[in-house]
């Protein structure tokens, strides 16, 4: 678990072990040394990450851009939070993102288990395969699914050719299920690799010990594997669940009207309607939500670590 609120401290301290009496290692010769390494990266983040976030917040509160005058108000937020249309879109988004996350965990936990303990010489090829999949372009992968599922797509074509159906099935594409499939396959690498990493750290002998003590297969999975793999589950949720909420290429390309998600709403507000304040407000709400999910995941991870 190195990705934490302070992603680089926790592990550094665990690995270095008890602090040396002399303190710093390696010896620091000048107070300026950290600054030589950190000034440019930190300036980059302040200018290109923090300041834009601040401007996003100010614009959502009515700051004028270009020639427009500033009209400070929280109208953009009240509209968002009270409009039933946005509530509907928000519910769709939560349903789709949660389903995709659950699907990925249901597939990912057994897959990671197989990779870590059962795959033998196929372990590295499987890992390499997952990495390669992630290096492929995500928009191209969405397109591949659309090609399969469309009205004139390959699945319909194949079923018709086999005489199973007379009319192409329209229900394959442009609905929530298509979005869930596309999102689940698109993010699976980031779900499986943390799970795999957590399981890889488990001492295999624990399974044998549990079995020798009379635990059945299910008990071993539930009482030994899952608690020890839990940190990996939280990392997976952190890395995948948050971006699922804001995805907008997948729902735009395969979601149709019933799969309309918040990410698309941000895009439409800003680029179609030119309503910068509302678009910024919705982005900021998404930012706050992702912060909450992250905080929750960290909290759960910490509680879990104390228990196991």
């Amino acid at each position, binding site marked *: 678990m190195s*990705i934490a609120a*302070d*992603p*680089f*401290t926790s592990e550094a301290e665990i*690995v*270095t072990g008890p602090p040396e009496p002399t303190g*710093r*290692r*390696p010896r620091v010769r000048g107070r300026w*040394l*950290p600054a030589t*390494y*950190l000034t440019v*990266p*930190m300036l*980059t*983040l302040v200018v*290109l*990450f923090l300041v*834009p*976030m601040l401007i*996003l917040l100010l614009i959502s509160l009515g*700051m004028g*851009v*270009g020639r427009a005058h500033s009209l400070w108000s929280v109208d953009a937020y009240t509209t968002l939070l009270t409009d039933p249309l946005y509530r509907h879109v928000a519910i769709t988004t939560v349903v789709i993102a949660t389903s995709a996350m659950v699907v990925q965990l249901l597939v990912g936990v057994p*897959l990671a288990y*197989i990779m870590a303990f*059962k795959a033998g010489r196929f372990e590295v090829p499987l890992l390499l395969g997952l*990495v*390669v999949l992630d*290096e*492929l*372009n*995500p*928009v*191209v992968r969405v397109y*591949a699914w659309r*090609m*399969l599922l*469309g009205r*004139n797509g*390959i699945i319909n*074509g194949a079923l018709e*050719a086999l005489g199973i159906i007379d009319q192409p099935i329209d229900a394959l594409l442009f609905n929530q299920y298509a979005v869930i499939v596309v999102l689940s*396959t698109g993010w699976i690498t980031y779900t499986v*690799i*943390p799970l*795999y*990493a*957590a399981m*890889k750290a488990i001492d295999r002998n624990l399974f044998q010990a549990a079995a020798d003590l009379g635990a059945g297969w299910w008990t071993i999975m539930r009482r030994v594997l899952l608690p020890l793999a839990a940190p990996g589950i939280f990392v997976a949720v952190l890395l995948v669940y948050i971006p699922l909420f804001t995805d907008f*290429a997948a729902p*735009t*390309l395969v979601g149709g009207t019933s799969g309309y998600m918040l990410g698309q709403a*941000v895009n439409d507000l800003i680029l179609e309607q030119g309503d910068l304040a509302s*678009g*910024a407000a919705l*982005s900021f709400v998404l930012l706050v939500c*992702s912060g909450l999910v992250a905080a929750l995941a960290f909290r759960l991870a910490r509680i879990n670590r104390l228990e196991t």
Partner: protein
Amino acid sequence: MTSRSRIGDVLALTLLSVVMIVLVGPIILLAVFSFNDSSIIALPFQGFTWDWYQRALADPDVRDALRNSVVLAAVVAPLCVVLGTASAWGITRFRFRGRGAWSGLLGAPLIVPWLVIGVSGLMFFAYLRVQLSLLTVGAMHIAVTFPLVTALVASRLVRFERSQEEAAVDLGASQLQLMTRVVLPQLAPALAASLIFAFAWSFNNFEISFFNGGYQQTFPVWVYAVLRRSDNLPIVNAISTLVSALQVAAVYLLWLLIRWIGKKRGSADNLTNLVAGGLR
């Protein structure tokens, strides 16, 4: 016990096969239909052709988009490796005031969704009245990509035996010598991986390129625009197949390189550690 473990093996094999088909199948079909001699992508297969590849490579929009993406990633990736490695070193090897806050700031772009970062960039540049172009995309790519390199490199740094570093300092090595003679050679596999991954992250980035590119399209933005305008275009199949093949080759070569370095040094720096190490 044996019959039970056999059932387990069968289940494992079934799961693996289904997952492979679902994950890889669409990409394979994408490639197969790039050779189909028909303007609509549907069965039955009409015969083999290279035509779509020729048309794709002759298309000015495709060429522009590919050139933009390659130039962008080629500039962004090395800068990200430098910034990411420097910040990883600074944050893992020194104790100083505000270290927690700075490492929090380094971690934040990994958690904030790219859509929000893309939109914030759009607003930022609109506020400053900066014309959107490849430059603005590149700036935002650097800001979101180098913290990923930091995470990757930092996860290696915290695992290093520090005795060599200490010995180098005790023997009077300067910071520059410490870096070039001791630290960077040991980091080589992680740096190679970071370079390839940073290139891919920039090349594949859709949200940030989409919001900050203005009229200059990168490859993913071009694919998205074509898909929104019209239905299945075999040209997209052709060029996507080509790009995907190169991406697969890049990762494979990286793996060979890491294995080669590992063998030469007899170190345990393998792919598993590199990819999974940062998340453990």
